[in-house]
């Protein structure tokens, strides 16, 4: 099993959710996050006072999938979250040791 964590542009969230749903993903966890990469931040000016906003708002999505599905999910995210400009985000893939469904106590593949 894999845990796929993707940092994407917030306005791409709906497209990504639909795309990963289409390849068979059953659940997604979404978090609003801030951070910086090569995009860096931007400057805001309020009545002449300049503030450098170093951390840009992003959306983090986390998806647990079977190994067989992982590559198709990654493809789906790339295809929908890409704009071609700096700041499109990153995908991190981890090995997932165990999954438990709290309601039934099911484990691993049947719990995903």
């Amino acid at each position, binding site marked *: 099993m894999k845990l796929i964590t993707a940092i994407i542009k917030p306005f791409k969230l709906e497209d990504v959710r639909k795309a990963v749903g289409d390849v068979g993903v059953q659940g997604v966890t979404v978090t609003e996050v801030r951070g910086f990469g090569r995009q860096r931040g931007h400057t*805001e*000016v*309020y*009545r*002449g*006072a300049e*503030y450098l*906003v170093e951390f840009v708002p992003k959306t983090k999505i986390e998806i647990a999938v079977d190994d067989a599905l992982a590559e198709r999910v990654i493809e789906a995210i790339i295809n929908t979250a890409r704009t071609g400009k700096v700041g499109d985000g990153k995908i991190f893939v981890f090995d997932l040791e165990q999954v438990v469904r709290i309601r039934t106590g099911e484990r691993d593949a049947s719990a995903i």
Partner: protein
Amino acid sequence: MITLSRSFLFALLALSVPLAWADPPADATSAPVATSAPAPAPAAAPAAPPAPSTTEPSVILNSQVNSGDTAWMLASMALVLMMTVPGLALFYGGMVRKKNVLATLMQSFAITCLVTILWYVIGYSLAFTPGTPYIGGLSRLFMNGVIYIKDVAAAAATKDAPAVDAVIGKVSVSHLGVTIPETVYSMFQLTFAIITPALICGAFAERMKFSAMLWFMAIWSIVVYAPIAHWMWEPGGWGATAGVLDFAGGTVVHINAGIAALACALVLGKRVGYNKEPMAPHNLVLTVIGASLLWVGWFGFNAGSAVAADGRAGMAMAVTQIATAAAALAWMFAEWSVKGKPSVLGIASGAVAGLVAITPASGFVMPTPAVIIGVAAGVICFFAATSLKKALGYDDSLDAFGVHCIGGIVGALLTGVFASTALDGGQAGSVLTQLKAVLATIIYGFVVSYIILKVIDMTLGLRVNEEEEREGLDVSLHGEHVE
């Protein structure tokens, strides 16, 4: 508030007296018909209605009140109150950091309540009754003498006596507004006395103790606001006598609040982390709503200052709208060309700067000068709030000085340039007289505000401690917070 040009008051008087004469006799002749006895002809003639005084508050018959003027002034009072709560409260509230938003709203709300009570106790009397050229008298303490007695129906009153002897309803009027009840005039003026100290809050946002603020505002309202309102607006005040033109409060409200704001910024010092940590506005939506409410309410402020529903009020309304639009665009374009982007905070600030600058001029100028006043205010206040503040290094957190004092000075001086004698019944403006009024307000306002602040600082302390400031005033002063 019409600068109380005597000619204007006489004109009002000349209008109101014949009308007042016309009404009561009509009532009096119809009422006695009900009594069967043939009325003795001379006895039926009613006593002459009292003519309202032009130098002191007086009592007139209810029938002498102008209902059109009164209706507009009732509405104006509500509009100007809306400028402070919630207008100014939201305008400032949106510009502070989130941890201070409630404390900022609280300042405007508490000042509204505090000044209302003080106005009833002493402020109204000191500002708007005759006294010396520098301060009013004490005849209206606790609003003593502000009366209304209901009309008694003539039929009931004349059972044994002719109708002319019936108790006739009376109402007191201010000599500054002889066609409306004094209750309405005094409450309309109260709303000005409320917003002026509330404007100062922009200078000490995010760091002043609430208790110290209450003390400062209470004292300031009595020893600074009331005398300066008396100088410029009460017919016996030295400014009014000298021909100072301040239709709705360029000196009394805006320069006055703005210079006190500078004193606050200097005495309190900068916020912890100023120029080192980000202090961006937490919610400009609140600020835009607040600025918009200020704009709408300002029609009560400026057009209401005609104290009549007449052509002059209409002209004041028109120039207010035009100058505000011009100033908002001027600030926007100035910022766009200097800083690269037209900001939302910029256009809203420009609108307020325009409203400030047209305040003394409304009622004295025509639409084209209004455009010039607006553009000047927009550009000059933009540089005051951005470059001047940075150059001088004080922390006027929300630009109460940069917008209100500077905008007020622009408006007060340009009123002297553009005042139209047609609008004012012949009184010409003078830049020199305007300058005298501006300087007097700045010097008196700054010195007295500075002293009050220093005394409070030595006794009670003006600022919260650093820990409380870092935590935010909402939690540290009020025990509440906004998610």
